[in-house]
């Protein structure tokens, strides 16, 4: 018997309900108006009053309206068919909704109930299984989608029966499990999981150690991220957060990409689903949309669902991780989610923390980032959820609560700089202020030495040093004047500019330059470090600027050419000629 209640108060989307039975915190309920059912979540209980946040506009809602509680928290529906879907924040399929406008209470199902999937069993009768054990597999697009023992099942079970290879619908029973007491538990291909709770059905979560290739030079070559790592991108508006995230979603070496567009512009999401069905994944040769799932809760969609959207996305990521896959989860932007929390906390008249955000904001953020990670599954396979979130700091001030809380939680920091953006130096990541804590991990250093190159880590440190020295030289030149400093200063500055123009800057809109393989990045890094190590012979400072501009120009032509193609080699030869003009022989 479900608990019921009646609406007694309304302020925007915060509704007060008098209930006739037990309710639990975060329980989902529906408000039954004459026309539609509105979904809502319990966010506070105080004596006879239950406060719920409605995931819709409450316009026209009247006191006395009936509310029915469901007895469960907000859950994600997990099963084959999630890939390539476009969901709202509560995992309703946006494509199934009718009409151009979003109608209140139009809740569509997350999966396709009637679709047949080719199921191949993995487990056999008599096998001992636990939650998340692989029972079988279906092909979802091209990905092996594992059908698992539901995560909610505790303890161990025995497979009593499992269906033969063949076509099944998601709600067909594909296996029957026996618990310790001999009770039969039928299992189908779909299961539910409360989004606010992490899925922990794995054996171990070690420190991440595998480099994750993103194709973005300023990340891979200077501040690398790892499989199962966390990173965040704070930046004032107009500095290219979204372009950078889109670049990651197109190029990163992951099996699946989940994009949570949380409280951001609708046209940006449109860009993804207009382009991704056309663009090819450089690794698999398939269309990008085949490996992508989008959670779109844009800024004009209900505010309360923003918070839900990031949790829904994370839960889907954890689900696929349990299949032994590499997942990259991108959330743009976590600040909007924090603002949604603030709006609600404000309406509930809670005592505010800094900038009127709720006091527990840092805890909420760090708990969320902690759900990412590299894991070893119970069957020895591994999977990962890499999480990169953007932060939109109010007024571009990195001392605001959301940025500060995120800085404590994320291990990679990609600082977008207004100054670089103003000078159109994209991506506008400040390579010196940014950091990746992972380079300090011996596990990662060993991995890179073995799989990439022995000098990669040293090169990162050297390149950063050159950039810092270049910046210092530039400041000196600005203070003392061009001719007030030794010519060396100019040389030092321009050598750092070579790194800036050739490695850091990358044209996200050029077909070739947009993505750079690790091999290519290494090759170019060697080239520019070669320029750095060369000792040049300049008489006056006036020679320095035009000389290095020529170097930069040919290196950029190399970046624009297919790797090791004819035109690439032509520019490379030109570069060597330019270098030999001025190099000092010893």
């Amino acid at each position, binding site marked *: 018997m479900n608990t019921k209640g009646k609406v007694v108060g309304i302020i925007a989307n915060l509704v007060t309900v008098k209930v006739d039975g037990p309710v639990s915190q975060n329980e989902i309920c529906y408000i039954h108006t004459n026309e539609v059912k509105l979904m809502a979540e319990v966010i506070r209980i105080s004596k006879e009053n239950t406060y719920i946040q409605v995931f819709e506009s409450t*316009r026209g809602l009247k006191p006395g309206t009936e509310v029915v509680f469901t007895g469960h928290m907000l859950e994600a529906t997990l099963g084959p068919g999630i890939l390539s879907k476009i969901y709202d924040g509560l995992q309703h399929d946006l494509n199934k909704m009718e009409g151009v*406008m979003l109608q209140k209470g139009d809740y569509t199902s997350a999966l396709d109930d009637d679709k047949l999937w080719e199921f191949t069993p993995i487990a056999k009768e008599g096998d001992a299984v636990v939650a998340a054990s692989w029972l079988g597999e279906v092909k979802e697009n091209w990905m092996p989608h594992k059908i698992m023992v539901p995560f909610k099942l505790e303890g161990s079970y025995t497979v009593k029966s499992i269906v033969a290879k063949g076509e099944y619908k998601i709600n067909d029973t594909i296996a029957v499990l026996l618990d310790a007491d001999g009770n039969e538990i039928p299992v189908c291909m779909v299961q539910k999981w409360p989004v606010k709770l992490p899925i922990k059905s794995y054996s171990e979560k070690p420190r991440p150690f595998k480099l994750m290739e993103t194709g973005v030079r300023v990340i891979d070559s200077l501040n690398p991220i790892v499989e199962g790592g966390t990173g965040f991108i704070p930046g004032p508006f107009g500095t290219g957060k979204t372009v950078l995230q889109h670049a990651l979603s197109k190029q990163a070496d992951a099996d699946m990409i989940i994009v949570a567009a949380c409280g951001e*512009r609708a046209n940006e*999401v449109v860009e993804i689903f207009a382009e991704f069905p056309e663009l090819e994944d450089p690794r698999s040769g398939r269309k990008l949309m085949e490996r992508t799932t989008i959670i779109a809760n844009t*800024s004009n969609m209900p505010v309360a669902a923003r918070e839900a959207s990031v949790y829904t996305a994370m839960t889907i990521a954890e689900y696929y991780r349990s299949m032994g896959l590499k997942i990259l989860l991108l959330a743009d932007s976590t600040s909007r989610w924090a603002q949604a929390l603030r709006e609600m906390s*404000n309406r509930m008249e809670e005592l505010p923390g800094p900038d009127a955000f709720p006091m527990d904001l840092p805890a909420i953020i760090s708990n969320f980032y902690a759900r990412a990670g590299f894991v070893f599954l119970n069957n020895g396979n591994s999977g990962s959820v890499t999480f990169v979130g953007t932060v939109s700091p109010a007024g571009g*001030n990195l001392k605001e609560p959301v940025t500060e809380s995120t800085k404590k939680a994320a291990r990679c920091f990609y600082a977008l700089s207004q100054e670089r953006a103003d000078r*159109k130096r994209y991506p506008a990541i400040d390579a010196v202020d940014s950091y990746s804590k992972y380079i300090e991990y011996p596990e990662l250093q060993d991995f890179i030495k073995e799989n990439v190159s022995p000098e990669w880590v040293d090169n990162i440190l050297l390149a950063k040093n050159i950039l810092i020295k270049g910046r210092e030289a530039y400041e000196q030149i600005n203070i003392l004047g061009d001719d007030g400093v030794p010519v060396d200063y100019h040389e030092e500055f321009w050598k750092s500019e070579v790194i800036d123009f050739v490695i850091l800057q990358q044209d996200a809109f050029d077909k070739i330059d947009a993505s750079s393989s690790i091999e290519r990045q290494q090759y170019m890094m060697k080239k520019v470090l070669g320029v750095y190590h060369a000792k040049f012979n300049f008489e006056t400072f006036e020679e320095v600027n035009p000389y290095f501009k020529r170097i930069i*120009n040919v290196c950029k032509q190399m970046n624009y050419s297919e790797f090791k193609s004819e035109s690439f080699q032509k520019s490379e030869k030109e570069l060597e000629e330019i270098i030999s003009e001025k190099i000092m022989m010893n």
Partner: protein
Amino acid sequence: MGTTAFQKIHTKIEHITKATCSLRAEGVGYEEMASVDGRLAQVVKIEGDLITLQIFSGTEGISTDAEVIFLGHAPKLTVGEELSGRFFNAYGEPIDGGPDVDGKEIEIGGPSVNPVRREQPSELIATGIAGIDLNNTLVTGQKIPFFADPDQPFNQVMAMVALRAKADKIVLGGMGLTNDDYLFFKNVFENAGALDRITSFVNTTDDPPVERLLVPDMALTAAEYFAVEENKNVLVLLTDMTLYADALSIVSNRMDQIPSKDSMPGSLYSDLARLYEKAVQFPEGGSITIIAVTTLSGGDITHAIPDNTGYITEGQLFLRRDTDIGKVIIDPFRSLSRLKQLVIGKKTREDHPQVMNASIRLYADAANAKTKLENGFDLTDYDERTIKFAKNYSEKLLAIDINIDIDEMTNTAWDLLNSHFSVSEIGIKAELVEKYGNRNGN
């Protein structure tokens, strides 16, 4: 809005504040409209049978026995073809002496467009202003504000853009317009012979500030009617959104809400996004493009209003007076059109993006050179060339009185680049230099 039969009249108001009054009533819906002694009001809070009403024009002179009638619906606008060429107040009532509009009534602030039903914007809006078309190209379905100081000629530039943009319909939402500005718009549109495709919703400085809150929704509801029902390309002009946000903060303050940054309500981002996100390209061909004005105080873009706006809109346009040429220009550094990537080099010539970037980069070098000069250092030959280039560039391309087509702008940029710099200084892809860069055959 007169009284009709069967409407219950309440006459017992319990609380009155500067902007709200509360009374006991049953069966009232959230956000429902009411009339309090003839003044329009809206339900903002329901606690059991205690209803709080926000009275748009203020509570001055309201007595505890004022007549309160609930109207049973959210704020509405009557839409129809007759909206064109008309002027309305914030409630959608004619202020031009004309008759009421004949058509259907729809609630303002209606539902949002399903993101998957949106079309990717792809139609360029040509304005003839190179600072916009060349460097910050606008696209139908885009939303973009002018960030301007109050003394800058933003309304003039906006009117110019609106008239040149060749939109089917123009909807003006004026919030806190001075009477002079209101008459300015009216005259400019009239003189251009464009009045018949323009609908205006105007709240002037004479009107109560809280009424402004209705203006953008009215304007956007009219725009949605034209774009959805008639598949028109609609351009919505909203000026000045800073005054709209100020009105939001007045209301939130009177509702005892905890203010966040700069005394603005914590929901400012969502409140603004709800409006700006009405900009859309529909698959059937209609579109809504929003050009707004956000006035700044002392050029400060870190203030909560421009800051939140910048995160919502698809770029921003800055006006600046260039003292070298004595004209107002579109600032190439701080201005940005995010959607330009969808059209430049695609709907325009392929060399457009690189020419644009190279020019701006060299213009930035000129700014550095000027700083050097101000600090009393000698300039190199390169520095001097950048300064010359910057002046020409401002004069021939950035000034807002330019009116040429985009190919001509790109050609002008090539000419300027070639006459001041070598190929390696320009740094454009060799292929493009060959194809477009040798305009004088050298």
